[in-house]
């Protein structure tokens, strides 16, 4: 039982870890906030001065900022939609008993182990390249004009690449959820006269609710900060067509050497991410209550 004494001991014991974690989080955060109020350009070292809200004003009125918000939303929502619909269907398929089940499951998981830069480069050069790419070859083989994915539909292409990476994750989580469904429930529904579609919508899908919530929460965290795929494929272009908030902060601080403006963008990104998190938890967090 927790006595006064043992509780004190517990607090003393965990304090180093808590202090380390807090420092790890708070020091960069405070520095970013501090920089965001400075006129801090790497091309003019030693000339930093306090400028108040100027950095924020410039960042928020930048036309690229609104494009970036729209792109970030499109990227997150598009990938979530594809991975969840695709993940549920793949999980249903993989749940069927079949020959070579173990190997097929490993193959399905495999894309998740490929690092983002590598997979994006493979997609860019081996699949989507309008001259040498596999898709171009296929188009030519049937007599069509090859489609230049990354310049004609850049954001869609990146959504495709990112979905390919995250589909295994969603499939894996949803597959384990499907396997935990009591088969007697499905049999009971069958006896009650529910056809395959009714069984899916009335029994399987509600059972997957919690797993889908977990997938949405985890993926949103990572999808808000997609960066490597954009850097190696489109560099945020053409124009700002594939610039998301993360990439805009990168452009501001490391391509335009404006650390102050980049920091302001970073702070805005943090605030927006928290707003999204609050909405997410409000909307779907109740699914996590047992």
């Amino acid at each position, binding site marked *: 039982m927790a006595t006064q004494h043992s509780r004190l001991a517990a607090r003393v014991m965990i304090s180093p870890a808590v202090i380390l974690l807090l420092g790890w989080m708070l020091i960069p955060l405070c520095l970013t906030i501090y920089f965001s109020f400075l006129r801090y350009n790497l091309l003019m070292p030693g000339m930093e001065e306090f400028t108040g809200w100027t950095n924020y004003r410039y960042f928020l009125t930048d036309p690229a900022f609104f494009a970036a918000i729209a792109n970030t939303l499109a990227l997150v929502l598009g990938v979530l939609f594809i991975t969840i619909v695709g993940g549920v269907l793949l999980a249903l398929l993989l749940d069927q008993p079949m020959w070579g089940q173990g190997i097929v499951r490993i193959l399905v998981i495999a894309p998740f182990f490929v690092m983002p830069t590598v997979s994006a480069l493979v997609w860019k050069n081996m699949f989507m390249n309008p001259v040498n790419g596999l898709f171009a070859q296929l188009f030519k083989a049937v007599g069509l004009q090859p489609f230049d994915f990354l310049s004609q539909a850049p954001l869609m292409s990146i959504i495709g690449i990112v979905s390919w990476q995250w589909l295994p994750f969603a499939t894996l989580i949803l597959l384990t959820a499907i396997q935990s469904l*009591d088969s*007697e*429930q499905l*049999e*009971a*529904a*069958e*006896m*009650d*006269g*529910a056809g395959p579609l*009714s069984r899916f919508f*009335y*029994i399987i899908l*509600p*059972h997957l*609710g919690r797993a889908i919530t977990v997938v949405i929460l985890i993926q949103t965290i990572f999808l808000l900060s997609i960066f490597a795929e954009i850097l190696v494929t489109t560099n945020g272009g053409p124009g700002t067509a594939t610039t998301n908030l993360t990439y805009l902060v990168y452009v501001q601080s490391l391509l335009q050497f404006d650390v102050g403006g980049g920091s302001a963008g970073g702070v805005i990104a943090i605030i927006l991410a928290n707003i999204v998190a609050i909405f997410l938890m409000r909307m779907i967090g109740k699914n996590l209550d047992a």
Partner: protein
Amino acid sequence: MGRISLNQVTKSFGDVNVIPPLDLDINEGEFVVFVGPSGCGKSTLLRLIAGLEDVTSGEIRIDGQDATMVPPAKRGLAMVFQSYALYPHMSVAKNIAFPLRMAGMNKAEQDKRVAHAAKVLNLADYLDRRPGQLSGGQRQRVAIGRAIVREPAAFLFDEPLSNLDAALRVNMRLEISELHNTLKTTMIYVTHDQVEAMTMADKIVVLQAGRIEQVGSPMELYRTPRNTFVAGFIGSPKMNLIEGPEAARHDAHTIGIRPEHLAISTTEGAWKGVVGVSEHLGSDTFLHVHQTGLAETITLRAPGELELRHGDTVYMTPEADKLHRFGPDGLRLA
């Protein structure tokens, strides 16, 4: 409504033959219990009737119609599962209404039937709750409610009481028997508990390794078990089966005598032995007697107030007309 007959039905899983050719007739309104040790194929047989498994060969007829290839939903049977199989995300009312909703019944009629089932099963106060908020017995009643609203030709119960505690089990046993008396619908009930079989059934089907060992009313099985398996399975505590010279003296390979048909005495009797463990139930005492020279242990029922200690010598006399004789093949001798 509710006549089911199985004709030369077999079931194999791969090479394993679970049910050898089997014939069985279930009459309208009967309460039939399938009983047998675990793995004897009784649940498989029930699932074959329900249509959840396909028969390997043979024919199932429901009300005279060939139902062998009819999908489960179209057979007009309702099943209550061992795990209850309630839909956890639906309220009790929605659970009960689910089969009606699937049948496309209008909302008013659905509500009427749900309300009626809830009244019959004392669930009216719980209709808005989720299954997770109910006790085991209440969940069981919801599962039965879901079966009742469909007004099926027959109810199938797959070990419905095995997840309940002992006191609740006795209660639910009574409730299901009561329900059968009210509805007068055919019920098929699977259990491994011979007490449930004896107390509830109109007709017991004893199964072993997929074979029907005997079909009959509870008392028929108790009085005239067809073979040593049924003799040992029906009745609690088990019948004493004795082989060897004592059996030969009665012109049989094996003789059987139930514990309640042995008279006990401390002075004289046909068989002599030493008292081992005695189980005092209050109303009765079950004595386990050793060193009789007949079998390892002879169980016998004695009056509750009996004062005998471990190691005491006792004498037992079987009631002659209650002695069962079996041949070398295990079958009952006339």
